[in-house]
């Protein structure tokens, strides 16, 4: 018991020191620089278009866990769900030449990509599912990005703790071949717990990037004016890494 107490003092003292460093200006800059360094190394070692692994259908998980928002009750989402999302629209806006408002039917008529991929949650669990939807690049090309567009922001219908969910990626991940606007999971329309009727798949990053209940795709020049400026719901609220490839 005594040794445990001694270890506890050392452990807590060390942790407290780390907290001090993390909370200081230069400390938080250092931690941010480390994230950028990893992203740079990943981009250096990996082809821009390198694909996340795709699995045979036999590898699909017995069911696909829902996490975060699993049944949004805010706004007109429950009413839209009750009518089978018949009037759901996906806005494409921001720094684009042709703003668009797409129906689910519009999205289903685009060329589709089907991929069996693994979803890795930042917490540590994984699940494999088969996703179907058009590549985001098709939609962005149709909308024609203005040259000053640098990031794509995803707006969502779900509301967590009073704030709408949002996420963002840069153009490398936005144009990646496996980045799709998914409307089907395992051959069925996307279940509500997994983001019905539309969610993003950003296969080379962790689960919190894969925005569910997608209502709008917005091209922006900078993330400074999005939420609190860190590029996503969890990034703004809990300090999660914007680059979620680690």
């Amino acid at each position, binding site marked *: 018991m005594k040794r445990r107490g001694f270890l506890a003092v050392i452990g807590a003292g060390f942790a407290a020191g*780390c907290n001090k460093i993390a909370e200081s200006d230069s400390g938080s800059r250092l931690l941010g620089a480390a994230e950028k360094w990893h992203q740079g190394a990943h981009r250096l070692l990996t082809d821009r278009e390198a694909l996340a692994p795709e699995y045979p259908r036999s590898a699909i*998980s017995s069911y696909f866990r829902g996490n975060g928002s699993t049944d949004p009750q805010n706004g007109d989402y429950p009413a839209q769900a009750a009518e089978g999302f018949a009037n759901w629209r996906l806005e494409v806006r921001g720094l684009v030449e042709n703003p668009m408002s797409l129906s689910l039917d519009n999205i289903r008529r685009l060329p589709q990509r089907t991929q069996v991929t693994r979803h890795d949650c930042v917490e540590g669990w994984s699940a494999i599912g088969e996703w179907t939807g058009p590549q985001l690049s098709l939609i962005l090309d149709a909308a024609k990005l203005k040259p000053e567009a640098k990031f794509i922001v995803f707006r969502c219908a779900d509301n967590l703790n009073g704030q709408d969910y949002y996420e963002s990626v840069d153009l490398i991940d936005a144009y990646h071949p496996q980045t799709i606007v998914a409307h089907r999971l395992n051959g069925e329309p996307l279940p509500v717990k997994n983001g019905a009727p539309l969610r993003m798949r950003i296969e080379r990053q962790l689960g919190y990037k894969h925005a569910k209940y997608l209502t709008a795709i917005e091209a922006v020049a900078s993330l400074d004016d999005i939420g609190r400026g860190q590029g996503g719901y969890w990034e703004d609220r809990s300090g*999660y*890494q914007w680059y979620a*490839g680690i």
Partner: protein
Amino acid sequence: MKRHALSTRIWHWLNLVCVVVLFMSGLTISNAHRRLYWGDWGFAPEQAWLAVPRFPDWMTIPGYYSLAVARDWHILMAWPFALLLLFMWVTMLVNRHFKRDLVTTRAEWKPRAIWHDIVQHLKLNFDHEGGKFNFLQKLAYGLVLGVFLPMMIFTGIAISPGMEPTFGWLVDLLGGRQSARSLHFIFAFALFGFFIVHVLLVLLAGPIGQIRDMITGGRHGEA
């Protein structure tokens, strides 16, 4: 000649800082999802091979539950840790520390010789006839430098979704993403086990002299 080369001493202490921060922030990351699985996927209790206990706040970085801050620390230390290990391996091969002090001889693998070594350790007799390290030390340091520490890096790369498009073969070799995560945890605790025994033996062998020598280098031939 110094008992410990400058490169060894620098690596030893910097590596200690890296490993301690990585381990303690890793415990917070473990607290975020306290189950381990084999294969490519797993998320439910019935799929897990181990339910991991929750590590108390005094063991973790930060000293409260924050997965985001723990990941910040883990991400910060991962690169220095990997580059330092590479540095240690290159210098060990160049200055022949590896060949001279760590490679075991065939004679040392004879059961009688191993038993003799174990008995000497249990008697707390730390005189090594001849070489710098006895067999058990060579085995322990060899395992740590050659297996445990490199495996932390390989399993770490394998659970990084941004690295996987290039290192998918590594994930397959380790048995899938969740297997790699399990192995990351297992080797972390193998290192923790080494750390405990290492510190214990330093305490038994005279901690002041041992630590002084690991700082100043000491003199060859002096225990």
